[in-house]
């Protein structure tokens, strides 16, 4: 089908974009890479939006490390995240995630911030943000806010961002010496949405496990994390299957998703230990 947009404006700066959103009478919609939004518009799932195109705001793009913190601008494209040596060094989970996101042509335009703000429950980056303990940074009429990933993702396609706010970057602690970050997912075909996905991060302070495509938002599997910290893989596998409440749909039943979550945790732990499971 053909999209039906209510209007379009190209934002020259973050301030300009906020003015446009404020002047949109609640009809404003932030357009970044457009790889989800324009598809939704073409399918008439979203009609009459006043599009605030932020894709030309160069200050929102790029990767910087300073003082133990990695900052990735919201408009950094998936392909740029995937190719960044800085990201590979300091947050290899994100490098891994990129290879699972859709297809090359979509990764060339889709943005990390767009994926985070869109908050598709099957998306990789939101679960990575949870596992890594990332912080989302936004700008709005009331000023800047820093929102921990655990408070950011609220529901299907719903985040803590207000309608008049824009996500500007994500920050995360750089991987410490000896830290291991692993992403496992099952999809029927390359580039498909995950049936289930799992991120495992092991730091000196303990394990972090997040899952995606298992409910309305990505979750931290805190009981499984504690079990892994105690060295009890079987308890962790049991926990990860019961901590999620996955849907049944045409792709997979809830029971199969629960089973997969345990399988993925076993695979991730095997990789952690250097086994080739």
């Amino acid at each position, binding site marked *: 089908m053909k999209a039906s947009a209510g209007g379009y404006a190209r934002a020259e700066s973050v301030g300009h974009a906020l003015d446009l959103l404020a002047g949109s009478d609640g009809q404003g919609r932030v357009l970044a890479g457009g790889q989800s939004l324009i598809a939704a518009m073409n399918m008439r799932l979203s009609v009459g939006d006043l599009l605030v195109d932020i894709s030309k705001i160069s200050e929102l793009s790029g990767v910087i490390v300073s003082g133990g913190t990695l900052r990735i601008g919201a408009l950094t494209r998936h*392909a740029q995240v995937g190719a960044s040596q800085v990201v590979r060094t300091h947050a290899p989970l994100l490098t891994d995630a990129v290879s699972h996101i859709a297809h090359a042509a979509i990764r060339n335009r889709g943005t990390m911030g767009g994926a985070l703000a869109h908050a598709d429950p099957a998306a990789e980056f939101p679960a990575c943000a949870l596992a890594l303990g990332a912080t989302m940074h936004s700008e709005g009429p009331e000023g800047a806010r820093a929102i921990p990933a655990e408070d950011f993702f609220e529901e299907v396609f719903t985040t803590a961002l207000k309608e008049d706010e824009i996500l500007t970057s994500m920050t995360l602690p750089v991987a410490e010496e000896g830290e291991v970050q692993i992403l496992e997912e099952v999809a029927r075909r390359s580039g498909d949405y995950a049936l289930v996905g799992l991120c495992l991060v092991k730091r000196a302070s303990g394990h972090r496990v997040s899952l995606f495509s298992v409910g309305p938002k990505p979750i931290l599997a805190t009981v499984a994390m504690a079990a892994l910290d105690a060295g009890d893989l079987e308890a962790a596998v049991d926990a990860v299957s019961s901590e999620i409440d996955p849907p049944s749909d045409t792709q997979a039943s809830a029971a199969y998703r629960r089973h997969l979550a345990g399988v993925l945790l076993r695979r991730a732990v095997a990789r952690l230990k250097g086994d080739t499971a």
Partner: protein
Amino acid sequence: MTEMFRDKIDVSLTVNGEPVEARVPAGQHMIDFLRLELGLTGAHVSCEHGVCGACTIRVDGDAVRGCLMLAAQADGAEVWTVEGLTDTNAISDLQDAFVARNALQCGFCTPGMLVAAEELLSKGDVPSRAEIREHLSGNYCRCTGYEAIIDAVESVAQGRAGKGKT
């Protein structure tokens, strides 16, 4: 306040090396603009939600989905379609290999396949068959079963590297 938003947007870009100035509807995607306004019907409109790859074009050096980019976003962009890539002989070896290897039957997916494959080939390495398959995983072909397409791309990669017989 909503007068800040326009339903027609002026854009200035280059398409296949030629300057284009146009006023485009806010919701028009790039492929409809190329096909309906410029008559460039090489890239195809098919699923219109980014799944099939038939609309793949090159924008600012990257292979992108023409259906997932608004024409309004193309201001300042350098756009290439299969027509321009054909006229400049930029992909003639790839096109010849598609014919030689029977890598197309109906041809509907071919313009998108060519643009996507050329992006991989332009990196200069000789990709493995698995890498070719992965790179083309976002381009559907309902005729060939893909093996012939991968044969064609592989033979060009080897040919360009001076290792093959193509």
